[in-house]
């Protein structure tokens, strides 16, 4: 019964569409539009996967979902809604994690094309590798507000997702967060750390007390250090518990005593405005005149912040009665109130402009704005690319952008030729990676979790030494190398120049990591390792460091991949740290367009 593409597209293309199988990863903003387009064009067989459930904030654009669907599986509801447009389509929906080993290379191989409609880098990296390993064309896409883009990733034809390495994640030096915040975001990060210290899993990297090792304060805090040592020994949570989360005590400790202590580190304040410790009885209740805003956009007075803060302490204390660890979530009203009030109080102390709960939510939750129209346009363009792939014209695919304004030739969307694979890519070109670290400080557990998994996107790595015996130091088999995990790299004689063969069986991905020894001072502030890319980059980096004495020596590319920066939705809460770079809502850089497309006329 379906007319679909028959009367509009060449017959041979229609035949190919009729015999195609498509895999869609993600059923969010782009995903809903994409599924509708595929079904209407007449793609007969679609599998779709999404782990997420529907949230009310999806409803302004994810039009296959309605209020009564909130809390249900996105993949399932999308399937049911899209089937109404064309009941003849075969759709299989999975509410599952794409990284599960159920979706192995053989699974990917059954499709003609894979369409990504994802919202996070880590899944994009994984699907990139799976498609390269299965040699299946992948159409990537992403949007952020009015901006969007789509491109084709195909082995040996075009750039893969990881061909352009991303520059290091945006993180803030610990001493800025703990001692000398100068922007509201520093206070927000501090407040999220405070939440974890008080109610969540304590992380040594998330200390909120004054940092006595601040190099700027060197030799300055002698007397005060002694005084504070007693406190340092007790965890923040334990201390708060012993004091029954008493709001007066917690407030006084954080916003008076600790600030006083910071003031004693006088070197810090020679060129900065010193912070002002707060006394509860003197809190101001004055509010700026704020008209024409929704309640959430009103900036709280300091008195109001204290009241909210007190209330949150009370509520959150109740929740951790059974010694539970809370996980901060921007959509949890109390958790959000806590961060807003604490961040505003701290901002006030340091003379930083406060913002509303609405704005702080954007910053704390890395929320990326999203609208239906951009998603509709990009999803339409994705299907045009998919049709070319199915027709065997993959090389006619383009890198297509939606921008705020047409380009100088009045084009919008704008398309450009695909870029060739980067011959030095450590994913699609078998290039090796250099990692700078101090082998005596890095345990195998850290190497596995922070370097191989978090930074290099592996799921279940195996690592083999170049010791002539092929010793396996990390195994993806449960329990095989557990006893190694707390040992340092040095204990396995891993040193400068050592080569580690790292292998992820699920991703069919293998890479050689070359160790480059670096002391703590050589590494970027607050970081224990640095992925440099290939060996040549490492050399040029060393030269840079020598020439410029470390200043601006970061061999970073400034044309960051837009697909990296944007995403359809806010980041998942589970991986907040490594995603910080993604909240930069940048306009896509035109630099990536190597050539403007030829005009059709």
């Amino acid at each position: 019964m379906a007319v679909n593409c028959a009367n509009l597209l060449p017959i041979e293309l229609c035949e190919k569409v009729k015999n195609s199988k498509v895999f869609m990863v993600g059923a969010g903003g782009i995903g809903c539009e994409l599924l509708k387009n595929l079904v209407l064009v007449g793609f007969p067989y679609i599998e779709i996967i999404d782990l997420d459930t529907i949230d009310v904030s999806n409803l302004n654009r994810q039009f296959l979902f309605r209020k009564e669907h909130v809390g249900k599986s996105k993949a399932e509801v999308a399937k049911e809604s899209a089937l109404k447009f064309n009941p003849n389509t075969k759709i299989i929906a999975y509410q599952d994690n794409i990284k599960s080993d159920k979706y192995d290379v053989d699974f990917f191989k059954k499709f003609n094309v894979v369409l990504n409609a994802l919202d996070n880098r880590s899944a994009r990296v994984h699907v990139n590798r799976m498609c390269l390993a299965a040699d299946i064309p992948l159409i990537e896409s992403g949007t952020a507000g009015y901006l969007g883009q789509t491109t084709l990733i195909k082995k040996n034809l075009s750039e893969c997702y990881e061909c352009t390495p991303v520059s290091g994640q945006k993180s803030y030096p610990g001493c800025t967060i703990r001692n000398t915040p100068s922007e509201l975001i520093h206070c927000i990060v501090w407040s999220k750390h405070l939440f974890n210290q008080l109610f969540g899993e304590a992380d040594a990297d998330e200390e909120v007390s004054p940092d006595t090792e601040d190099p700027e304060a060197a030799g300055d805090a002698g007397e005060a250090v002694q005084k504070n040592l007693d406190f340092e020994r007790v965890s923040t949570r334990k201390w708060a518990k012993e004091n029954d989360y008493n709001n007066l005590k917690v407030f006084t400790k954080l916003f008076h005593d600790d600030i006083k202590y910071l003031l004693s580190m006088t070197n810090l304040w020679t060129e900065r405005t010193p912070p002002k410790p707060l006394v509860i009885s003197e809190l101001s209740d004055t509010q700026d005149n704020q008209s024409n805003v929704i309640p959430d956009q009103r900036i709280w007075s300091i008195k109001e912040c204290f009241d909210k803060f007190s209330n949150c302490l009370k509520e959150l204390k109740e929740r951790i009665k059974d010694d539970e660890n809370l996980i901060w979530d921007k959509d949890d009203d109390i958790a959000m109130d806590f961060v807003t009030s604490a961040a505003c109080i701290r901002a006030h102390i340091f003379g930083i402009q406060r913002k509303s709960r609405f704005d702080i939510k954007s910053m704390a939750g890395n929320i990326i704005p999203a609208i239906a129209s951009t998603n509709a346009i990009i999803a339409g363009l994705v299907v045009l690319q998919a049709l070319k792939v199915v027709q065997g014209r993959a090389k006619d695919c383009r890198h297509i952008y939606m921008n705020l304004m047409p380009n100088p030739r009045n084009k919008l969307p704008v398309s450009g030729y695909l870029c060739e694979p980067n011959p030095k890519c450590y994913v699609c070109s078998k290039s090796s990676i250099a990692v700078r670290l101090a082998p005596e400080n890095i345990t195998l557990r850290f190497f596995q979790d922070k370097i191989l998994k978090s930074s290099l996107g592996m799921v279940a790595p195996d690592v083999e030494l170049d010791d002539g015996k092929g010793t396996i130091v990390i195994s993806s088999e449960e329990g095989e190398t557990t006893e190694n995990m707390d040992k340092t790299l040095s204990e396995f004689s891993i040193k400068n120049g050592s080569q580690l063969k790292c292998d992820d069986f699920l991703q069919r991905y293998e890479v050689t990591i070359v160790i480059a020894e670096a002391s703590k001072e050589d590494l970027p502030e607050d970081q224990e390792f640095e992925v440099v890319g290939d060996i040549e980059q490492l050399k040029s980096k060393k030269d840079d460091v020598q020439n410029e004495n470390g200043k601006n020596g970061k061999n970073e590319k400034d044309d960051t991949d837009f697909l990296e920066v944007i995403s359809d939705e806010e980041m998942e809460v589970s991986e907040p740290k490594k995603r910080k770079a993604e909240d930069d809502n940048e306009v896509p850089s035109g630099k990536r367009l190597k050539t403007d497309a030829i005009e059709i006329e």
Partner: protein
Amino acid sequence: MSNNEISKEEVDQYDRQIRLWGIEAQNRLRNANVLIIGMGGFGAEVTKNIVLAGINSIVLMDDKNVTMVDGSCQFLIDITKDIGRNRAECSVSRTKLLNPNVKVSFIAETIKNLSNDYLKKFDVICATTGSQEDITRLDETCRENGTVLFFGCVQGTFAYYFIDAGSHEYTKKTIKNQETTYSEDVQEFPKFSDVLETRNPSTLLIKALDFITGVKKPILMEFGVACAVIGGIVAQEIIKAISKKDPLYNNFFVFDSQGDGSGQFYKVLKEKYPCQKFD
């Protein structure tokens, strides 16, 4: 400005877009009334996008009945049940489901029969069908009423639209040395009848004009993907026109879905000024 306050529920529902265009633009949307003429695939895409955005009301208008070809692009009708029924009427229930805050109604009418008084109610009219005479008259009325008119078509895989916003006042945002300033500005749009007199050398534009003037015979099918792309662009322009933020694209757009994926804007002026590029 708004005479009724935006509710907490609406703020939650529209959160991701309020963070983009702000509460003032959202309030303007909440008070805007739009007429969609022609409920094919293009009309359905525009309708979906602006209803999701949260306008006050939308009227769906069509005098045609659902046929098989609608199944390839019109997702607001039920192709298994609605064949032979009025396209606008059949689109109402799914449109309502997109966003319960928006008032949705339909009329089964032709453009000729619409009175000036009726047309006055709308802030924006988007016609996705209509003869040259119909649109010329509609454009004159819209200019008198201060209504923004979009007129476009999807002819097979080929799509185009024209916009006449008369004298459009909007708030211009300028970013200089990281400082954002706002100023009031006015854009002047040529009328529809002037645009038809252009002597533009672009083959794409000539193709579009040939469809409008009837030199080329209309194609009875709309390619769903072409509808999605141009429907997204027109919806975004409608939202800009209503919120009076940022300049509109003045005044003609062509998208060929058999091309390289790019779209082409033109500033089409009267005969004596051949097509100008706008910068």
